[in-house]
């Protein structure tokens, strides 16, 4: 078993099978992020490189939730399966797609398959971990975000590209979105003419426990 999962875009092949996915019925983005980070920690422990982890919206059994997809280089399919299984074991319900093969409750396969396809195409998805993200700590100029990370564009939510000189106060929490093959970080105006990423690390909680 020497086959490796591969980062899309690195020129080493882009088969859909090489992106893996895990669905533990995460109801909130926070829960999905926890799954994503658990996967990343395990993968990096095995020496994985070029790790990309994303979350996707899925609807199964009328239960909207978030799935998690992952691609990396430097780890075998067997190792990836083991990592996702270890993470999934902490949950009551878990479905996996590894190397194109599903396991777990079949109702979740459709959503997982779509998520893996979206990750492979970089068509859609909310990206939690991506090459260069460790440089997005503190305040970084928009130009440096684009130069030093996989982020392709920084856009203000009202519809314009951010000025490259504008400081982006990252709040150490950056979740760009794939949009038609590009990794786009959406941002909004913040204090003192700066920008902050659109997604807030600690959004105001809600009494109704909506996800």
């Amino acid at each position, binding site marked *: 078993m020497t086959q490796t999962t591969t980062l899309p875009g690195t020129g080493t092949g882009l088969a859909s099978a090489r992106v893996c996915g895990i669905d533990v019925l995460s*109801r*909130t*983005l926070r829960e999905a992020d926890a799954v994503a980070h658990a996967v990343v920690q395990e993968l990096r422990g095995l020496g994985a490189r070029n790790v990309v982890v994303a979350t*996707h*919206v*899925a*609807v199964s059994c*009328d*239960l*909207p*939730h*978030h799935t998690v997809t992952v691609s990396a280089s430097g780890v075998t399919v067997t190792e990836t399966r083991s990592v996702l299984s270890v993470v999934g074991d902490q949950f009551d319900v878990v479905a996996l797609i590894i190397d194109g093969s599903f396991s777990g409750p079949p109702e979740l396969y*459709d*959503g997982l398959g*779509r*998520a893996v396809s*979206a990750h492979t195409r970089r*068509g*859609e*998805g*909310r990206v939690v971990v991506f090459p260069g993200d460790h440089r997005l700590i503190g305040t970084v100029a928009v130009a440096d975000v684009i130069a030093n990370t996989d982020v392709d564009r920084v856009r203000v*939510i*009202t*519809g314009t590209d951010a000025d490259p000189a504008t400081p982006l106060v990252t709040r150490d929490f950056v*979740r760009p*979105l*794939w949009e038609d093959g590009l990794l786009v970080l*959406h941002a*909004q*105006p*913040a*204090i*003192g003419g700066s920008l*902050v990423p*659109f*997604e*807030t690390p600690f*959004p*105001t909680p*809600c*009494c*109704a*426990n*909506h*996800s």
Partner: protein
Amino acid sequence: MTHSHDGHVHPHEHEHATDVEPDPAVDLGIDDGALSRLQLGRRNFLRAAGLLGAGVASMGVLPTVSAAADDAPRRSREGGFRWLAGDHHIHTQYSPDGQYRVIDHVRHAHAFGLDWMVITDHGSAQHARIGVEKVNPDIVAARDAVEDILVFQGLEWNIPAAEHGTVFVHPGPNEVAVLKAFENNYDGVVTATTTSNPGNEAVAVSGLQSLSIAVANRDVKDALMFANHPARKGLDSPHEIRGWRDAAPGIAVGMEGAPGHQAAGIAAPTGPGAGRGFYDNSPSSSSFPAYPLASYRTYGGFDWMTSTVGGLWDSLLSEGKPWWITANSDSHQVWSDTSVRGAGSDFATNGFFNDPEHATAPQLGNGDFWPGYYSRTHVGAEDFSYAAVMRGLREGRVWVDHGALIDALDVRLRAGDREVPLGGVLTARQGSPVQLVIRIRTASVPNWTQVVPKLAKVDVIRGDVTGDATDRDSFTAPGTKVVQTFDVSAQTGVISLSYDLGPLSGGFYVRLRGSDGNRLAPGLGGAAVDPAGPQLDVVGDADPWKDLWFYSNPMWALPRR
């Protein structure tokens, strides 16, 4: 990100479309005797409310319906309304995130100039069991203790599959029983139906219909529902809003045009430093996937559905059906107040927090204002009564403002010797010249930050009536735009404006918006649609007093057939 939703969204639409279309209760071609008990109850309710066959009413303001209603009833009511300021979204110590007694809110609301208010604690297991009953004697006592303010009991409903909404009833012997039954049967948290799916969406519709029935059966004299902070989390999809409106016209009548929590954007450490309105969420798995990221934030303190010219609100209005906006405090814990929750509270067990206690330090992390302090919903009422406030709200004689931007607004849509007030439907012959007549009294006294606000401009927004939406998830009205802007920055006192809307051909509606002019930007639909609209609020740095707006509700003009 949203691909997997696609296969599910469309079936919902069809279900809704067939659900809501034929309503025997409003079809006067069907005899009373041919209706079921529920249908008859609903018809009697609509009749009692003056809504059956009365134009705006049940099925909209399209010519075929409104022709029957033509003249007299509305004309006799024009002008001379008593404009009563109020707030339909206020939390007390019976909310799990609240703090104050009922009387604390009532005394402040009265002092800050409100005439009516609705107590709306969150639906919850504790509230359904304890709070909904225990708050009532507090409300009854406050009605006695503070004269000249109308205090309604309501509920902040966790709308199944959606956001929150205000539900409230006319006071009476059954006000608690009706609210309690509603909460136990239809609150999303109490019944575990918050998840966004078609089954839960149907529970919301049933809940609204149950209120229609409660009114028809005379369990309570009246009931209303408004959607609260509708765009905050993307949970209220366009087809759900249309579904509520069409399932219970006269009950589900509108939404918050501006959310509460208007102090939330005050920069830290003076304020919470959050998003204005606490609008700081991102799309989740329960969000309507087609909403843009821009919809999750406020613009000049107003919700995106309302602040976007040619946006969701306009798409509803262009159908020719009523859907009104309000502005409220959502007051839970007041910015810079020097009290905190009572020590030793056990909300989970008791269903309330102990009475508040003094804290020396001003609580600068709180994001709310007292009712009446910043946000006001002005209702044109025939008299000072609970029934008249509810009727004015239902009929859309409503305008809203922030920071006491103006003292009074009187708007008429006129054709010849016929005219209608806000919320009204003017019918006239094809080709009749239609005129908009506006009287504004500018602020004559300081607001609660000790400043006399200055109105800089007034915008007239116009859109065509295009009929029922073919796509019930549509949230755009491409033809709607700002057609006129009046610079009134040099004027104080009474400002009289008029604007010729031309000879009447197709049906259209107009609405007004005004600003202090401090923060303007082209709207999300582009400068051709809205050259100087409200700006996206800056997260963590939005002083609400430096960005004041008023919005009116719409009026329609329709050609007589």
